[in-house]
């Protein structure tokens, strides 16, 4: 428990550091948030005086460090400020959008796992056979194709030609198919290759040979002994993919008209909406931190040796 608490506390300075970096970079980008705001809400481009007034009102005339410190002070109390462009609290905007991203992310991650792990195992068991060759070709394609191209190709085939699913937009279950598949392809391809190479290393290990010598079938050997030992590197690869998915799939959300955090971040950057950019960076950082923590804890559950090593380290420290 103290380990979890320590990791959570460590995440706070990390997130603040990331947010400061994002804040500084956003301010370095050319473009005035006040002018962007006025252009968006008004029926005419703003006058000089209107821009000056808006900058004052938005607190943009204060020194950069003062702006950040004031933001960070509120952020640790859970107040991420008001979005320049929507005029709503950033926390409420993020809270509204995160569930939409989660819907896609969870489904895409499960789909990727469901494809990648069995495919990787079969490839390893049938190394250099036709299935292996085909799967490697597909995974190469899956890992290298840009998501916008894949998304549009899927739309053309399944929505326009076959009329099986809608082109875009949230609706019934069928509306999830294309965005989820598009999102799942890259992690599935990467994890399939990862599973294959990990399994290839494991298949020749002593304990696998022992299991076979005991008379277990190849499948029982793999399922009973191989997978468990391959889980840790797989979990690492999975956590990285999941982190990227949770941080929002900008292109997929844009093409499929999905109101998730990816689109929110894109809009925030275009509008120079600093509070929203900051909020998004914090969210993405927190998502990675939580996943890393969960993975670390899972390591111990999967491999008792890690638990024992952790206990020994803590014991020796005490």
């Amino acid at each position, binding site marked *: 428990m103290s380990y979890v608490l320590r990791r959570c506390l460590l995440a706070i300075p990390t997130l603040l550091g990331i947010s400061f970096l994002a804040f500084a970079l956003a301010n370095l980008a050319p473009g005035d948030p006040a002018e962007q705001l006025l252009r968006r809400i*008004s029926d005419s481009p703003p*006058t000089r005086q209107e821009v000056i007034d808006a900058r004052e009102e938005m607190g943009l005339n204060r020194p950069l460090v003062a702006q950040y410190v004031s933001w960070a002070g509120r952020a640790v109390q859970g107040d991420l400020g008001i979005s320049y462009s929507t005029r709503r609290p950033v926390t409420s905007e993020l809270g509204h959008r995160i569930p939409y991203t989660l819907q896609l992310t969870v489904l895409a991650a499960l789909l990727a796992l469901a494809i990648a792990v069995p495919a990787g195992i079969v490839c390893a068991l049938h190394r250099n056979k036709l299935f292996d060759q085909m799967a490697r070709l597909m995974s190469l394609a899956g890992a290298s194709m840009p998501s916008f191209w894949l998304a549009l190709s899927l739309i053309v085939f399944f929505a326009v030609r076959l*009329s099986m699913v809608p082109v875009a937009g949230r609706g019934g279950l069928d509306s999830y198919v294309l965005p989820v598949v598009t999102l799942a392809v890259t992690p599935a391809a990467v994890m399939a290759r990862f599973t294959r190479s990990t399994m290839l290393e494991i298949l020749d290990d002593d304990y696998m040979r022992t299991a076979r010598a005991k008379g277990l079938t190849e499948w029982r050997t793999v399922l009973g002994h191989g997978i468990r030992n391959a889980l840790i590197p797989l979990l690492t690869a999975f956590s990285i993919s999941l982190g990227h998915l949770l941080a929002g799939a900008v292109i997929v959300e844009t093409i499929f008209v999905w109101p998730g955090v990816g689109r929110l971040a894109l809009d925030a950057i275009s509008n120079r909406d600093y509070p929203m950019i900051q909020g998004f960076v914090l969210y993405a950082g927190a998502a990675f931190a939580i996943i890393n923590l969960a993975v670390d804890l899972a390591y111990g559950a999967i491999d008792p040796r890690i638990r024992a090593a952790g206990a020994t380290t803590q014991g020796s420290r005490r």
Partner: protein
Amino acid sequence: MRTFRRMTVVLIMALVAAACGGGDDDDGGSAGQTDTSQPTVNTNAELKVGFVDDQYVLEGVDASLGAYPLNTNVLETLTYLNDKYEVVPRLAERWEFRAPNTWRFYLRKGVKFHDGQPWNAQNAKVAIFDRVAAKRGGGTIKAGPDSVAIVDEFTLDFTPTVGNVRVPEQIVHPNNGAVAPGTDPGKKPVGTGPFKFVEYQAKERIVVERNDDYWGEKAQVARISFRFYPDANARLLALQAGDIDLAYQIPRDDVKGLKDRGFTVANSTVGAYRALYLNQFGEAPFDILKEVDVRKAIATGIDRKALVDNVLVGLATPDQTFVPPGVLGRSASEVKGFQYDLTKAKAMLDTAGWRAGSDGIREKAGRKLKLVLVSGFPSAEALRPTPVFLQSEFKKLGIDLEIQERPDSASFQALMGEKKGDLFIEEGNQNDANVGFLPVLLLYTGAASSGSGVYQGISAPGPTFNALIEPSLTEPDLAKTQLAVGKAINEAVTEQATVLPLAGIFRIYAMKSTVRGFVPHPSFLNVSWLGVSVASR
């Protein structure tokens, strides 16, 4: 879509080369939709419309749900901008100017808000003028808290906080729509329009339904569902898949393909312009265009007809004014512009001392004639491939043109403000009937100037322009105003060549053949859905 197809081929070839695999080819299209059976109007139909991105403001005095930039016709304005850029009556039946600075509006009778409140002078004051007065600067109409005096139940006087002779032309903007007193336009807009608000899902859709109590002709469809598609390819595919009936802003390259598949493609008259703003006040290395002869040579050496025919696929006109000719009226002919003449343009550069070097690029005093073109408003993507076309035109003149694409409009304008570039290309819009709006805002530097100064900082034509346009600031008569503005634009475009309009741009809409009665408006903000119907077969 063409880019998408090229990308498809390249990607497939790359994958084959990398892994000796294969891939399915894809022509990105579907079968045609032609149908020759006799249609009948289905008054219970739902029209599905694909718009671009959702940019509604939902909070505060600037809340614009259902009105701006996507106008769902829930709110109505006192005056309306029709597709010919004429100001016509809407919630006001007529209006008149009363010197020195008052506009009297005679309101339409027999109008009700969707919640049953009556439309009268008192409610008009609250629904329009008080709301606009609360906005920064009192909006374009310059409304103040005490600007309205009620004359009788259906007549009011509006006196702007500063002299403003253009109120009827400005008030057409949907941001000036009438919102029922006591309602929240950011959550549920309640207006007087032919459609009533039903629901809104941010970044997804907004739905409206026919107002059966509308004061005028009733809408032809029962419901309109507007869906947001920020990606142009997705919007196009949604139309082809039948998910939507009508789509805004169709990429020019896809027009022919859509027509071949049986879709109707409708274009408006000129509602936007593509122009180059020339930096005549830059410091080295962005100081070459201080020379007016070089600016005029460039203006003479651009083949606008080729641009319109080949790059803009004929869906534009080679206009040399950045205010649509429809807005300038007969005074559009005041803008002379430049006749394309490559030989003459080269000779002009020779005379200016810029001689062709051994590599074909002109030089003067050891300095190459190299210019930087910055692209990015509204986006570099939207302007492609015009900058590349210009690069080839400039090369014929012996000018080395470097293209710098900015990632968004904010960084484009920031660069313009810093004067870091020689030419800035953009596509601007005309969304109201105020003829002097753009030239005053962008180029005027006289005593009454209020613009941000960014465009003036590089392209202000100077005192003659200011003197020519100033009468338009105080002249209520439209024809006289158009004449003043026409002469001023000619000074900027022809005499000083600080702004080089390249083309007048049409708005392009595409729809299924079952959609009837749609009027392609040159301003996206002012599309009317009243007469649009869906035929059933």
